[in-house]
């Protein structure tokens, strides 16, 4: 059993890596950096990474977490990858709207819709 709970779970479904944030808060600098590393590894592993980020459990996140997502997205785009975000709670979605990151990321209400959106 791990000493510290995992920050994310990664499940491969067909060609998509589904990354679910397991904690309710994405605030701690160390955690954000670790999640960033995990996402970067997923991007680097494959020629055309396809990643779905599931925010079902997330109640709080900081601008540093947004920065980490932006970095991962930029890295992925360089490899012609696809990234989708899903199951974002309304109060977190508002953070995306205020920062206009809802225009940068493709956000879907649920996993099925997000999965269908991959080309």
């Amino acid at each position, binding site marked *: 059993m791990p000493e510290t709970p995992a920050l994310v779970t990664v499940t491969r479904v067909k060609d998509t890596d589904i990354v679910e944030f397991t904690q309710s808060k994405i605030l701690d600098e160390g955690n954000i950096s670790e999640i960033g590393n995990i996402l970067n590894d997923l991007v680097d592993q494959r020629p055309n990474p396809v990643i779905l980020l599931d925010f079902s459990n997330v109640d709080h996140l900081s601008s540093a977490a947004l920065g980490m997502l932006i970095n991962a997205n930029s890295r992925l785009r360089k490899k012609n990858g696809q990234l989708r975000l899903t199951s974002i709670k309304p109060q977190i979605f508002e953070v995306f*709207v205020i920062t206009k990151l809802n225009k940068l990321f493709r956000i879907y209400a649920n996993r099925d819709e997000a999965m269908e959106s991959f080309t």
Partner: protein
Amino acid sequence: MVSNGSHGHQPRRTSRSNHGRAESARHESANTSRAAGDTDFVTTVIPSDFAASRELQHRIIQQVIHHGYSERNLFAIKLALEEAMINAIKHGNKLDMKKKVRVDYAVTPQHVELIIEDEGPGFHREQVPDPTSEENLCKCSGRGILLIEAYMSKVEYSKGGRRVRMIKFNQADTPSAHG
């Protein structure tokens, strides 16, 4: 690794007018005193350390919860406090443990007021690029300030940007704050 034997976590109460003279309370004090004033402020000085910040944030948020703020207002205050503390510790004090962050806070049923001051070089608000503009959307900075201003009722900078004062009024859920 970051243990410094700080005694700076103990709060002390000051009157509303006291936060105008930050230098006089810059020393760390375990004394708690209550002075007359409109609103009682609690003053806490912490080192530039995220763990100390987390503890202080928790203490402030517990008070906000105690006063029965709505989920939405609570979210706003948590977010703004988090961003302001990161700004002070990381961007202001550059994680220098010798530098302190002073936090004056007052939590009442009507409003929450937070005054956060670091010992860094300060910044000019107008020089922070708009992170929502097309060319900056992929950059990683400026969003903390944007979020603070979007979620709080009132935000002021002083002392060359080393100090931010922010207020959240406990109104029935305010319309969404779009930037």
